[in-house]
């Protein structure tokens, strides 16, 4: 915390929440994306529609869910649909504007790995949870935002496994693979924001969070990271945004601690 009273994680969550526009329909991943999406709903985007893969449609949780199917999500939803309906009608049917994804690893084209690291697929060094809904969110949502803390272990030159397609090998390769949607249009980390270059589709730094240096970003990236021609500073979190975010986390901690 160099400049003002907030953490790097709070900056990341606030920047991600601002990326969501009021009225958009958002398919929400668990963890950081869920915090950002609910912060957006409780600040500048009261009519953002949040959908979780457990089938909770237009949900308005008061506390953040620990799992993708917490009772809080069902109780505050407009309606609850089956998981096949969720994936067939609502996601594959083209009803989702933004897919909000986390990841274990990402490469320069926004491809995501959540399957295995190191070794072989059958005998990996690290077995990750796997795909979940992400492969189809990544190709059926109109666009996706990726939210991930930046480090050389997470931002890698080459993925051991592509679980969810980003911009493939760059250029037009995503469309050639059969994806008809935009793919990752934005990556938000705890250091900066990136967007794909219009031609090469390589993720390029567009805004740097206050107090962060280019050298920090370079050191935290496993590939030779590029910066856009005009890089701006990410606007600092507003006191009101921080207050709402901290209240969400406090309510969540109280709710989860209360269950013995």
């Amino acid at each position, binding site marked *: 915390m160099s400049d003002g009273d907030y953490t790097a994680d709070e900056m990341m969550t606030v920047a991600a929440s601002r990326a969501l526009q009021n009225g958009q329909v958002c398919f929400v991943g*668990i*963890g950081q994306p869920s915090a950002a999406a609910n912060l957006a709903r409780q600040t500048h985007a009261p009519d953002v529609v949040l959908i979780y*893969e*457990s*089938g*909770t449609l237009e949900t308005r949780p008061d506390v953040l*869910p*620990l*799992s*993708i*199917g*917490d*009772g809080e*999500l*069902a*109780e505050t939803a407009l309606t*609850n*649909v*089956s*998981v*096949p309906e*969720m*994936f*067939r009608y609502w*996601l*594959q049917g083209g009803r989702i504007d933004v897919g909000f994804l986390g990841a274990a690893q990402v490469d320069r084209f926004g491809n995501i790995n959540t*399957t295995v690291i190191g070794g072989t*697929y*059958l*005998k*990996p060094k690290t*077995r*990750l*949870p*796997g*795909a*979940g*809904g*992400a*492969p*189809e969110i990544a*190709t*059926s949502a109109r666009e996706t935002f990726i939210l991930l803390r930046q480090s050389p272990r997470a931002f890698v030159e080459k993925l051991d*496994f*592509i*679980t*969810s*397609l980003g911009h*493939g090998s760059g250029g037009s390769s*995503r469309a050639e*693979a*059969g*994806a008809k949607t935009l793919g990752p249009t934005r990556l938000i980390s705890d250091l900066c924001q990136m967007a794909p270059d219009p031609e090469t589709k390589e993720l390029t730094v567009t805004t740097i969070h206050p107090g962060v240096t280019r050298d920090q970003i370079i050191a935290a990236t496993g590939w030779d990271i590029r910066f856009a021609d005009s890089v701006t500073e990410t606007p600092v979190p507003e006191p009101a945004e921080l207050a709402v975010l901290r209240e969400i986390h406090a309510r969540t901690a109280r709710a*989860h*601690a209360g*269950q*013995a």
Partner: protein
Amino acid sequence: MPRAVITSLEEAVAENVSDGDSLSLEGFTHLIPYAAGHEIIRQGRRDLTLIRMTPDIIFDQMIGMGCARKLVFSWGGNPGVGSLHRMRDAIEHDWPQPLEIEEHSHGAMANAYEAGAAGLPCAVFRGYIGNDLPKVNDRIRSVECPFTGEKLAAIPAMRPDVAVIHAQKADRRGNVLLEGIIGVQKEAVLAASRSIVTVEEIVDDLGGGPNAVILPSWTISAIAAVPNGAFPSYAHGYYPRDNSFYKAWDPIARDRETFRAWMNSHVMQRKAGEGVQ
């Protein structure tokens, strides 16, 4: 069609689950059939193909206790906490025995259950575009739409020998009501050859509205009343998810001996439906 038999959990498992069966235990975070899974462990079933979109702690326990030969899944973590250590130990180190895996995405498994319920040989959907899963799972293939030429993903329909689910209520004729997050349970039961449903209670009148999610008695093999049968997951309208248990599971499951000792005192030495609290 014969109606469901209302019986004890021990009988339901003994009658319907055999070594070598393929078994779907579904419930998407909600209504996970823990008590039934524990009874399968106690009865010592072996060489099972275990099928769940989200293996969760129940499959961590069944895999760690040596019930499984193969796992079919699409997201294998402890939600919001981290890894399933017993599942990882089986995949990474063959403990307590090798575990074959068949890995999918959620969209694929949901479609495969629906195809199974619909009596189709395979599921067709827009999925697996540009990712590596088809390289490691030869059941992921593609078909061309005969009308548009679009290449679509295809996987075999899910057709388990047995579906095991937990629900809120059954009536005395054996009709079952599910409420809240309903996941893929209806599809899993309709896709399976046999099915076991545990319920919180058996009542005179289900009380669902005209569009309630109901599984008719004649689609189910056996029903057992098991209050708290989904703990530590939850049953909408009965008890909340015990998030603290999910967090506490992490250190228990990290170590083989700690895990075995815990299972011995909390599952093996208890009777069906006694729960783990």
